[in-house]
């Protein structure tokens, strides 16, 4: 402190000496008479500067003393000398500062402890975050796998549904075919029934016809009988006429007219006989034909009866077919309905599995979000760790500074205590 004013004083003295020399050297062009004047002017300026510096030095010492006293708490009073009171104030300041340093040292130690435990905590959180992250990844992988499986089973169920649909289509075809078969068989049955009815009518017609033919034959025989009688009468008439002719011939001329009449009668009788013969032949032919017809009708009747019987069995068979086909058709319809229900069930299954898939996808995205959150958390914790390390470092530097400072101020004891705490 005494050194500063002293140097200033020396500097001022040097300036008082050098200024005239500088003036003498700087003004060579000036006339020689003016040189001693300039040197003395410069010497006088140097002396003035010296006096002014002395004055300012005193003022500044006083200000410094007042400031030190304020810093020391005010209660310091020197023995009268300005330098002594300044020294006392500085002593007090030093004491205060040592106390402050000690406190800073303690606080910095606590900061270091807190930073260490913070670091530890961050490490632990980070570790569990890593665990969570792993778990989340596992969950995500699981969800992915689940998604794949759901896709696979969805495909399988869709395939199954298609197969069932094909089966259903086949069953419907079969149902349609059997319905058609049933209808055909039913119409066949109706036709056969109608045929049986028609056949019965034909049968009745044939029976009637047969009766008529028989009656006709009987009538024809009656005609034959009548024809025989006519033939007989004609023959007798013929004979009578011949005899009459013979008698007429015996009577000679008298019987000539009678003979003509008798001849005409004979011819009539002959004609009648011939006609009766023809009728008789025709009657025989008719009788033969009607007998043939009766036999044919009898044979036809027998065949018709057989046909009727066969038609009856055909009708029975057709009815059986209708019954069988109808029951088959019913069964096929049941199959078709079941297949439709299965298709509906498969569609519902596909929907349900698609819902599961959607949920799984949502889960996967949620786990992604969680993973991202965990990652963000990890980053934050890393940041915290980094900040803690920074704080730790800052605390360390602070401690070092304090140590240096206290080492310079001969206050080593708090630094030693703080070293043990670290």
């Amino acid at each position: 402190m005494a050194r500063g004013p002293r140097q200033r004083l020396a500097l001022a003295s040097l300036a008082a000496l050098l200024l005239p020399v500088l003036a003498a050297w700087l003004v060579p062009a000036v006339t020689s008479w003016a040189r001693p004047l300039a040197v003395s002017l410069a010497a006088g300026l140097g002396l003035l500067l010296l006096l002014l510096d002395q004055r300012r030095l005193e003022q500044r010492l006083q200000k410094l003393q007042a400031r030190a006293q304020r810093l020391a708490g005010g209660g310091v009073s020197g023995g009268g000398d300005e330098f002594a009171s300044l020294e006392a104030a500085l002593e007090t300041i030093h004491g205060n500062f040592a106390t402050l340093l000690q406190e800073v040292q303690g606080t910095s130690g606590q900061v270091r402890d807190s930073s260490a435990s913070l670091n530890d905590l961050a490490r632990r959180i980070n570790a569990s975050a890593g665990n969570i992250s792993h778990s989340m990844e596992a969950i995500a992988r699981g969800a992915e796998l689940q998604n794949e499986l759901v896709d696979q089973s969805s495909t399988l169920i869709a395939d199954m549904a298609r197969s069932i649909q094909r089966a259903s289509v086949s069953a419907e075809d079969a149902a349609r075919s059997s319905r058609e078969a049933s209808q055909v068989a039913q119409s066949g049955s109706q036709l056969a029934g109608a045929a049986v009815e028609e056949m019965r009518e034909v049968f009745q017609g044939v029976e009637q016809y047969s009766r008529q033919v028989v009656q006709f034959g009987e009538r024809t025989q009656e005609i034959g009988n009548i024809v025989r009688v006519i033939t007989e009468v004609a023959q007798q008439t013929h004979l009578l006429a011949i005899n009459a002719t013979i008698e007429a011939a015996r009577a000679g001329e008298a019987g000539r007219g009678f003979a003509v009449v008798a001849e005409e009668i004979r011819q009539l009788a002959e004609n009648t006989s011939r006609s009766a013969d023809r009728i008789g032949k025709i009657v025989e032919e008719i009788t033969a034909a009607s007998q043939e017809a009766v036999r044919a009708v009898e044979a036809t009747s027998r065949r018709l009866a057989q046909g009727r019987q066969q038609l009856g069995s055909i009708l029975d068979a057709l009815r059986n077919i209708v019954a069988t086909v109808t029951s088959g058709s019913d069964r096929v319809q049941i199959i078709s309905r079941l297949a439709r229900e299965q298709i509906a069930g498969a569609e519902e299954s596909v929907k349900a599995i698609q819902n599961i898939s959607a949920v799984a996808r949502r889960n996967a995205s949620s786990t992604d979000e969680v993973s991202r959150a965990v990652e963000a958390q990890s980053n934050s914790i890393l940041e915290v760790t980094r900040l803690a390390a920074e704080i730790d470092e800052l605390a360390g530097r602070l401690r070092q500074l304090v140590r240096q400072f206290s080492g310079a101020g001969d206050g080593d004891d708090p630094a030693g205590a703080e070293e043990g705490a670290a």
Partner: protein
Amino acid sequence: MSGQADGGRGLLTVQAGGERLGLPLELVREVVELDGELAPVVGAPEWLAGLLNHHGQVVAVLRPAALLDAGAAGAGRQVVLLELEDYRLGLLVEKVETVEQVPAEKQGLGGGLGWHQGGPLRVLDRLAWQRLVDGRLAGRVEKGPPGG
């Protein structure tokens, strides 16, 4: 009995034994239909068909075919009664055809064969009959006692 007024005479044509016979009307008495069977004659020859009761008179009925040695005798049901000079006889014929006037030239000679109306006609007159019957009866007599 005259019967041959216009160059012809009346003939009764009959069928007997597959032949057509012409019988002069002056010989014919009557034609009768057989009512029942002829009364058979034991040991009678082929030409004697049997006996006929005609209105109480017994008449011998002959088979012309056998008498004439013609074809097989048919089953006639009519008998022509002939009136010869001293007896009557019956001819069993299949069919009595008609009475007609046949020209003399168509009647053949002496009961010979003729042709009339699309067929052969054998005319047997009184002489022919007498010869036939007498001949048969003579043959018959030689072998046994004479029949009625």
